[in-house]
């Protein structure tokens, strides 16, 4: 790929050299000048928006691109998620898609010349009932067909992988088995965001932070202000001024409906907060990611020693990220069911992010009834892991003006056609 301005190459050698010379590293990305027109505007500076920008430049040579974010890069779900990556989905469509993402993650540190700390520590989804076990088997069978390393294991093996789990049978929710997925793991979410941002910037993409989009400019549509079905997008209005562009891509996750609404497009999405929390650090004792769907909790231990917890989305739709006490109570209660020995660990911090939930736990990607207005949304509680592949595919979609096969099942039109994707069973607390 042709880099317009080379970023400083990161390496251990560089660290030493700069340490000796006492020089700082150059900026990771520029503070770009304001421009009034671009070929492509991407709204949302999370992993999806940034990856789309990066691949537009890297794979298609389209560099006259702006990424707009109302706050700072990664301020949405991309900077708030628990960074679990896996590909053991339930449907063949899902598996193929997420597996491509894992491939991209595997080489990302080298591709982006930035260590994203992909930690392939294994991912274990516990089953507490025979019906859950049946779903695990189903997933394992679909996964194996697609050559995904995924199998159902029993309590003894579970205990070996995570000795802190109580696998005895006299608990309220006995652990009957688990879907084990060795290639799953965690990643440093901020690093992924910064990596794509730095890579996109180096190829000439402008990253405008603190640039809130207030309206989408359209003409020729059926609705008010020429919006809605049949309209053509002409640009965006931001807090800093108007920008014209023939293509606008909505990558705003939790805020997706608000942006789509500005173009007169309704989405099959409701916004719910998803909460997470970390404990104070302790010495490593939990080597894998553990998920329990029935108990609505998942947990992993970071390299820093903190336990990171997550749950399922809050039931009430809201754009407020205040968080609740109940979340921490339920989380702690359930995690102690699984690991009774950690009752003296302390919760250090809780937070929330907004999730764009769809009825079939699958994303909405590709064109909309408004010409030039694309969406890459509906990422719910599981979209971080999909960042790389979504960026790659959305870039292709926009560059070629045609939806690539890999994301065809996820088009918005599936809802009016009644062709929902069958991930619902597997993703309720999937991440």
């Amino acid at each position, binding site marked *: 790929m042709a880099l317009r301005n080379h970023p400083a190459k990161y390496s251990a050698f560089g660290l030493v050299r700069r340490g000796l010379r006492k020089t700082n590293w150059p900026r990771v990305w520029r503070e770009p000048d304001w421009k009034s027109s671009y070929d492509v505007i991407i709204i949302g500076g999370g992993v999806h928006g940034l990856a789309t920008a990066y691949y537009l430049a890297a794979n298609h040579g389209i560099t006259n691109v702006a990424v707009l974010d109302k706050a700072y890069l990664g301020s949405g779900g991309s900077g708030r998620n628990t960074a679990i990556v896996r590909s053991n989905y339930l449907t063949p469509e899902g598996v193929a898609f997420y597996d491509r993402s894992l491939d991209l993650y595997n080489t990302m540190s080298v591709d982006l010349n930035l260590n994203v700390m992909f930690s392939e520590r294994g991912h274990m989804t516990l089953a507490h009932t025979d019906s859950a076990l049946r779903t695990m088997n189903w997933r394992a069978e679909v996964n194996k067909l697609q050559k995904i390393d995924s199998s159902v294991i029993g309590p003894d093996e579970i205990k070996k992988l995570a000795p802190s789990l109580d696998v005895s049978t006299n608990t309220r929710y006995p652990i009957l088995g688990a879907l084990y997925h060795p290639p799953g793991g965690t990643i440093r979410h901020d690093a992924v965001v910064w990596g794509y941002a730095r890579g996109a910037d180096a190829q000439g993409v402008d990253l405008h932070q603190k640039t809130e989009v207030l309206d989408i400019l359209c003409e020729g549509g059926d609705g008010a202000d020429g919006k809605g079905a049949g309209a053509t997008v002409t640009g965006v209005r931001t807090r800093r001024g108007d920008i014209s562009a023939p293509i606008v891509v909505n990558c705003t996750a939790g*805020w997706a*409906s608000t942006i789509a609404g500005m173009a007169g497009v*309704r989405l*099959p999405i409701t*916004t719910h907060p998803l909460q997470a929390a970390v404990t104070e650090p302790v010495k490593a004792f939990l080597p894998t990611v553990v998920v329990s769907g029935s108990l609505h909790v998942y947990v992993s231990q970071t390299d820093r020693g903190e336990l990171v917890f997550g749950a399922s989305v809050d*039931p009430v*739709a809201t754009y*407020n990220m205040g968080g*609740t006490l109940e979340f921490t109570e339920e989380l702690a209660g359930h995690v102690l069911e699984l690991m009774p020995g950690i009752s003296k660990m302390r919760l250090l911090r809780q937070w929330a992010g907004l999730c764009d939930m769809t009825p079939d736990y699958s994303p909405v990607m590709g064109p909309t009834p408004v010409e030039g207005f694309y969406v890459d949304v509906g990422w719910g509680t599981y979209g971080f892991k999909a960042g790389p592949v979504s960026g790659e595919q959305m870039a292709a979609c926009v560059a070629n003006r045609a939806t690539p096969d890999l994301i065809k099942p996820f088009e918005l039109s599936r*809802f009016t056609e009644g062709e929902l994707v069958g991930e619902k069973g597997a993703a309720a607390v999937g991440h």
Partner: protein
Amino acid sequence: MLLVPCPNCGPRNAADLTYRGESHARPDPNTATREEWRTYLYLRDNPSGWLRESWYCSSGCRTHFQIERHTFTGELREPLLPGSKTGGES
């Protein structure tokens, strides 16, 4: 936790109720086109702002009612009693 004003029980912890989401009218099942029906099933305004929504007092009096809630600030407007479609289901 949010306090939700059930018209019968008064303000209750949101966890005592069931959230049913954005209120929307059911099209006539005999005349609705696929598009209309699926719009009813799946598409939502999901605004960041005032939203008319349905709640169910599932651990209390079991009344279904609607309120208007601001989805960012959490402010509430007067609850409406069940079935009061006159309140203007959108």
